[in-house]
């Protein structure tokens, strides 16, 4: 497949937003049970609005993928069958929760919704946080299932696609949360950094397994099944057009194997190796610089990772476009 930059930015940017929100609410959930000190409302509030900025940037990027952005409202109609439609519904809902959660923290309007028997007060921000958590995961699943549900794109048609979207989005969000905490709540940077480290390493496992799986895939479709002729040697001599077509532009990334290999190494270094080392050092020697570099490197790496994710998928239609006369 030819990677579309708009979709590369969409999936990585909203991943950061989702991960950042999950990180903030994880800290607040710990604080609810007095496992960590509760932070000032401004910490959660501005953090949530920062996540909203990332989600919004992703949403804007997605519009560049559309031929008719003015009809985008129609995409909310087919949620019964289309994961893309589901994503279009869940993303604004998640952004709405980000906004409410942030405003609730910033304004201090955080009434007790339920008082549990143990003396635990469930505030509005906790309820909003739960809703946001559910929506964040629903968004991860919707986004990933857009790709994972296409059964003949065998590289994508795997639970690993969903797992990796969750882990990689989570990793980048927690890394950003580490940077955010290093700047505004240094005492909590270790907590976020530790989780960022763990999720990044889980992401490394998930992505490595998918790379390993995809390298060993046996493509079910062949030229033989594509044109229905049983002969081991079939060579395409003409594809009906010599100046290229949508089929030759949309489904071939047009880069060399060497480029792909270099890109794979790059994203493995930038997304995983670099941030893991930086975050590990940051635990012992906390600073703003280390998580800052870690986040920028990881996000840049994720752009490469997502580009590679699209490029590594072999569309069976390519079997019909193997040669020009």
């Amino acid at each position, binding site marked *: *497949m030819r990677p579309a930059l708009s979709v590369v930015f969409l999936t990585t940017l909203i991943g950061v937003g989702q991960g950042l929100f999950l990180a903030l609410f994880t800290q607040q959930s710990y604080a609810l049970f007095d496992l960590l000190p509760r932070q000032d409302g401004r910490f959660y509030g501005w953090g949530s609005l920062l996540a909203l900025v990332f989600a919004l940037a992703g949403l804007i990027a997605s519009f560049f993928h559309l*031929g008719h952005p003015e009809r985008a409202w129609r995409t909310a109609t087919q949620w019964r069958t*289309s994961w893309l439609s589901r994503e279009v519904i869940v993303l604004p809902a998640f952004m709405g929760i980000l906004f409410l959660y942030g405003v609730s923290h910033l304004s201090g309007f955080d009434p007790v919704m339920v008082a549990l028997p143990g003396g635990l007060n469930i505030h509005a921000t906790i309820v909003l946080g739960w809703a946001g958590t559910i929506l964040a995961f629903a968004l991860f699943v919707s986004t990933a299932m857009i790709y994972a549900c*296409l059964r003949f794109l065998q590289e994508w048609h795997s639970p690993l696609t969903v797992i990796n979207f969750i882990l990689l989005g989570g990793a980048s969000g927690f890394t950003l949360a580490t940077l955010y905490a290093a700047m505004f709540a240094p005492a909590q940077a270790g907590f976020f950094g530790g989780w960022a480290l763990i999720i990044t390493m889980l992401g490394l496992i998930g992505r490595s397994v998918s790379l390993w799986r995809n390298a060993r895939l046996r493509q079910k479709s062949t030229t033989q099944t594509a044109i229905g002729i049983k002969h081991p040697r079939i060579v395409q001599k003409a594809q009906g057009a010599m100046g290229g077509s949508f089929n030759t532009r949309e*489904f071939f990334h047009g880069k060399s194997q060497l480029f792909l290999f270099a890109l794979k190494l790059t994203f493995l270094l930038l997304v995983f190796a670099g941030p893991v080392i930086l975050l590990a050092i940051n635990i012992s020697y906390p600073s703003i610089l280390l998580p800052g570099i870690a986040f920028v490197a990881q996000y840049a790496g994720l752009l490469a990772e997502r580009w590679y994710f699209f490029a590594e998928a072999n569309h069976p239609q390519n079997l019909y476009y193997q040669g020009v006369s």
Partner: protein
Amino acid sequence: MTQLALVIDLNVCVGCHACVTSCKEWNTSGSAGPLCDEHPYGADPTGTFFNRVQTFEVGQYPNTETVHFPKSCLHCEDPPCVPVCPTGASYKRKQDGIVLVDYDKCIGCKYCSWACPYGAREIDEKQKVMKKCTLCVDRIYDTTLPESDRKPACVMACPTSARLFGDIHDAESVVSKAIRENAGYDLMPEWGTHPANHYLPRRKTNLKIHEDELERADNPLKVDGKLPKPKKSDPTLDDVTSW
């Protein structure tokens, strides 16, 4: 239920591209607007087409065969492109099984083209909507045309009648008979899309000659010439066969 479809006979197709040009001519002139081309007279002309003829060489020289392979939307009975459409622009008609795109609803997100294993969908680079073969839905029901002309433009154009058109759910239709009697098959059956369009394979007429047909069994000494005249006492052919 009706499922209109094309049956394409690869044994007959000569690769003349008449179906391609006829399709383009009809569908670029319709009320749905043109099939846009980009720099048609430039170095790299490209444009929107519903139908293409591709050519494959099967086998190793000198035992090769050239197969011309017309390719258009297969109007799958279980079309993977339809459920993924986020706007409902892509749909399969209940009454005749034609898969269509509503150009007024399409947002041009290209997701349906990703979801089609056959690469049958193309974005119109000017109008920014997805386009594909409509089975000439604006022609086959047009009562102003004579009955014999109510067929897709590609079928009308084919000089060798390699393209058949009909309802594959009607067991007595010309397409159903062709599929049934001439080993019609569908493309990429591994994805369970159940394409409505079928292809008829290349067929060779082989004459099976047994050895005893080349060599006379009643001439063990391989002596050519007239057979000796049988004696009056020998059994005649009538005697032998009447045993």
